[in-house]
């Protein structure tokens, strides 16, 4: 079963078409890069896949469940259960520690919180020793690792990362993409990474390129 199946997806804001007839799929545990210049519709596609925007035309299925056609609450529920999201700068809830962020994310996703799982994931990402520190004391790289942990703690079928490395230096960018790939693979989570960061383009083979001559390639 595909973790993500997008078929004939089109979207427009008013009379301006942003996405036209997009079709691709990501199998369970597979990875894909979403490429394209600014304004090519990467963010719109992510918002549609994650159910933040309602689908106008075409279909989206996440782990076999229809995101397209679902009402607002149903989309929120599907996102909560099946999708993890990592943003470039919006990483964690600022008032909580890393541990409390993961606790909250796991409870929202699964209805329960398992401290041992949180500790194991923080261990894997190498930030367990910073789990209870105030967020302002963490480095950019540590924050991005924590954001990956926050997105993966609910064991989602699909992890969507929107520009996860743009704000990081070379070492941290390489580290972050490695951790994303390793951790997602360990959990059997599929990965969709939207980026225009050339440093990570050669790390993931499958690509979907958006733009004037966009073609789906999976």
């Amino acid at each position: 079963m595909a973790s993500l199946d997008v078929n004939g997806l089109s979207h427009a804001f008013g009379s301006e078409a942003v996405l036209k007839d997009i079709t691709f799929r990501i199998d369970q545990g597979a990875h894909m890069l979403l490429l394209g210049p600014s304004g090519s519709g990467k963010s719109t596609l992510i918002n549609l896949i994650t159910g933040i925007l309602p689908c106008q035309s075409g279909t989206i299925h996440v782990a076999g469940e229809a995101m397209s056609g679902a009402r607002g609450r149903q989309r929120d529920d599907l996102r909560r259960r099946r999708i993890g999201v990592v943003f470039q700068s919006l990483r964690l809830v600022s008032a909580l520690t890393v541990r409390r962020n993961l606790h909250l994310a796991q409870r929202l996703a699964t209805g329960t919180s398992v401290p041992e799982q949180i500790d194991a994931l923080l261990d894997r990402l190498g930030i367990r020793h910073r789990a209870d520190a105030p967020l302002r004391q963490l480095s950019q790289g540590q924050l991005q690792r924590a954001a990956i942990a926050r997105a993966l703690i609910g064991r989602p079928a699909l992890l969507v990362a929107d520009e996860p490395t743009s704000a990081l230096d070379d070492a941290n960018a390489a580290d972050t993409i490695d951790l994303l790939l390793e951790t997602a693979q360990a959990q059997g989570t599929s990965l969709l990474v939207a980026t225009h960061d050339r440093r990570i383009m050669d790390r993931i083979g499958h690509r979907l390129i958006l733009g004037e001559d966009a073609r789906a390639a999976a």
Partner: protein
Amino acid sequence: MIAELAFAYMRERVLATLLNVALLALSVAALVMLLIASAQIGERLERNSQGIDLVVGAKGSPLQLILSSIYQMDRPTGNIPLSSLQSLRRAPGVARVIPLALGDAFRGYRIVGTEPGYLSLYKAEIAAGRMFAGEGDCVIGAEAARALGLTVGQRFIGGHGMGEDDGGLGAEHEANPFTVTAILKPTGTVADRLIITSIDTIWHMHGIEASQDNAAAADPEITALLVTYRNAAGAVRLPLMINRQTNMQAAVPAIETNRLLSLLGVGIDGARLFGWLLALIGGLSIFVTMLNAASAREGDLALLRVMGATRAQVFGTIMLEGTVTALIGAVTGLLTAHLVIAQITSGQSPLAQLGIEPWRWNGGEAAIVAIVVGIGAMTALVPAMRIFTANLATMLGKSAG
């Protein structure tokens, strides 16, 4: 989840939270203190003057006469001849006349020379011991006994002075010690704070017997007379007769008490207005804090929504933060008010002398707390609604970067 986030955000902005709590606590403290004072002062004044229709004493301020003779709060206006007692007892329309001899105190607690009938005015009952009978005998009000640590059989030496400033620490009557013959049960009246003895004892302490041959001492003096009418005719004739035909004055407690309360009322109304203004400022401060916080946390709140929090949960987080801030402020203010009144009434202040009870709760306090918490909730409603109705994609567009 909602509670954890609300408290986390309160901790994150601890200074703003403390400022809002302090503003609301201040307003609630002011309002509750005024409520307690206005409710209990009126009630206490009324309770202390029950059964007393008229007070007769030396000429001077009628309010001073009432305050000194009934509420034991001010200095007496002077003395009047003992013969006035018998004259008034014979007057038509008079049911009861109780004489008072004031002027001494023991460690700030007034000594009142009177007759046992004085205690019946306040329905005072003896908890232990017997009523004063011989010279030097005295009974102690419950609160005075507790504060002074006196028990039945103990002896003490009183002194000149009325308590407020000299506290009975003037020249002491060392030759005439008092013996405690009884402790009274609490009455909730002025009697709780008094040391009560016979008029003969007061005279003896002041050497009036020793100067019986003296012409001036032939008619010993007393301080005031508490009069109860037999019928309405007394109320019409007696005050007029005393004020016009004698060197004494007659003051009506009901009139003087009302005058005092109306004078106090102006100040209380002004202070109450100030208290509500403070509550409004506290509410506005929460509003501004919450509005700014909601804008600053737009990214956080958007992330929460992405993580699966519902609109209602995000809305509830903001509402709970505003409401809990107001609740902490209100409860802090409530406790502060009672602590301040307890502190004030632990000494010899006018409020203490009136017998204000600091830990007696008034139903109006719950209403003040509810209104202030309501203000907190209302001010959180606008920013909460703004987030509730915001478009998630737009919020993310602004924040996700």
